[in-house]
């Protein structure tokens, strides 16, 4: 079942002024429940504008957005409910922490949902365990934490609402490689445990290739591609042409395939790459014997 359905969505910024800009141009899309979607595109391609429509932060100029078969702009009440079902984590979310304690900050969403104190405590505990923040930190001020911990607390604040769709806008921006791997692994684990739908905006094709099941590519306000990670890199040359980078491994395997070696040109993980090469090298060794 499609959890997210977008039909002919169009959005302009500053309509009717000389600065009018089409940010989303007639995008239609269906995302099945349970996918982990990597969202890729240049700055200005429309990817942030698109995701802000999915929980009703922006209203389409034309077209419809359905979450779980409900038109999210149907009524004010619906929109309010949608905000709890579609959680959005902005870039640098740690700048938005504001409460006195980590606990209160994470409890903010569940409290607004009208849960009772017991349910709130459960929601907070589930969320901190998902982002692996020790419960000893719950009574600390968020401002005593390290940058990476703050970011995880901010993500926990959205997870605590138990959204059916979780959208994260560049959750690894500004982190070092270790911090990046930690956050992405936590998101992947959370996705696998909850079987919910996760959209992950990223500039890194290598991260998307490593963690996502689907790739959504935006280009010049339009939907350029929405397909399986396994098939997207067969179009590597095309993707490079629109200015996005593909993993180094994919480039190597495309070149090897062009040179006539019997390799799968759609290879993007180091593990698969080395397995294929080892097989080839072994075969060559046997022939020479």
């Amino acid at each position: 079942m499609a959890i997210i359905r977008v039909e002919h969505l169009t959005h302009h910024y500053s309509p009717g002024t000389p600065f009018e800009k089409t940010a989303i141009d007639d995008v239609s899309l269906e995302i099945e429940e349970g996918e982990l979607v990597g969202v890729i595109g240049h700055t200005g391609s429309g990817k942030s504008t698109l995701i802000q429509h999915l929980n009703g932060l922006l209203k389409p100029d034309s077209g419809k957005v359905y979450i779980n078969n409900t038109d999210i702009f149907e009524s004010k009440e619906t929109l309010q409910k949608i905000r709890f079902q579609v959680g959005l984590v902005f870039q640098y979310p740690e700048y938005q922490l504001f409460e006195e304690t980590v606990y209160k900050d994470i409890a903010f969403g569940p409290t607004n949902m009208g849960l009772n104190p017991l349910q709130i405590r459960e929601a907070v505990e589930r969320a901190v365990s998902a982002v692996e923040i020790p419960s000893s930190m719950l009574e600390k001020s968020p401002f005593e934490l390290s940058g990476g911990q703050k970011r995880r607390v901010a993500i926990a604040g959205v997870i605590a609402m138990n959204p059916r769709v979780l959208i994260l806008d560049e959750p690894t921006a500004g982190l070092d490689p270790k911090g990046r791997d930690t956050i992405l692994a936590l998101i992947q684990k959370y996705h696998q445990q909850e079987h919910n739908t996760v959209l992950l905006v990223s500039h890194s094709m290598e991260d998307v290739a490593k963690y996502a099941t689907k790739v959504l590519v935006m280009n010049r306000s339009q939907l350029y591609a929405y397909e399986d990670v396994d098939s997207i890199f067969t179009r590597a040359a095309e993707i490079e042409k629109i200015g996005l980078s593909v993993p180094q491994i994919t480039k190597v395997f495309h070149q090897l395939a062009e040179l006539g070696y019997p390799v799968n040109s759609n290879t993007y993980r180091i593990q698969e790459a080395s397995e294929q090469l080892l097989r080839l090298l072994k075969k060559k060794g046997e022939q020479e014997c």
Partner: protein
Amino acid sequence: MKKLIQFKQVSFEYNHESEEEEPVAVLHDITLSIKEGDFVAVLGHNGSGKSTLAKHINAILQPTEGVVWVDGIDTSKEELVFEIRQQVGMVFQNPDNQLVATVVEEDVAFALENLGVESTEIRERVDAALQQVGMYEFREHSPHQLSGGQKQRVAIAGILAMQPKCIVLDEPTAMLDPQGRREVLKTLLSLNREKGTTVVFITHFMDEAVQANRVVVVDGGQIIADDTPKAVFSDVEQLKKVGLDVPQVTELAYELRKAGIDFPNGILSVEECVAELQKALGG
């Protein structure tokens, strides 16, 4: 080439003179020299001490023990701090925190005006700096209309206008998109190659680090590697141990070697990797 920056047995502690708080040791016994014209990438995970190291180069911080010389000046001499800062400019991570004026060219002129440089010379230096970073046509724009990469290039122009010998950049690309990252790196490489400006470049992106002519890896406040990119990236295991990345092709080469294949170490580019695989696979 002349040694421009020298660290001799430098250690640094935060709260060194505080009575209430415990001292926190950040750098231990660092000895390092950087020649004029070097392009040095500094790698290390968050908290490794690399930013603290960088801040010693333009005398924002002074060593607790040991000495730092910049162009022959001991950075602990307070009266000479301004001379040091004219030789070494610093660019930081956040493009939104560094621009002060409402017009690009005024921002670039800011330091020169404070130094009392004559106005015709300011004009010349500002124009030249903006041309070097490819932002001359934006000179009358407001900084808030620029992209992150463009803002960082304006920040670099502000440093260049001071005509320094060295630029130190602390993760200038961390908050940029891929295009902005490419713009900034291209600007730095051309400054280094065409003008001979010494560049000390802190980054988490390995594809950027491989373009330096020297890579210094900092971990636990100490330098654990200091060599060409090829040599440093050969030691995949050590880099991973200290929480750093290696380029995918470097890791692939490492995996093949681990499986017993005779394959060269320190492969950094797709082209090199394909060429070596062709050799190994024959045909």
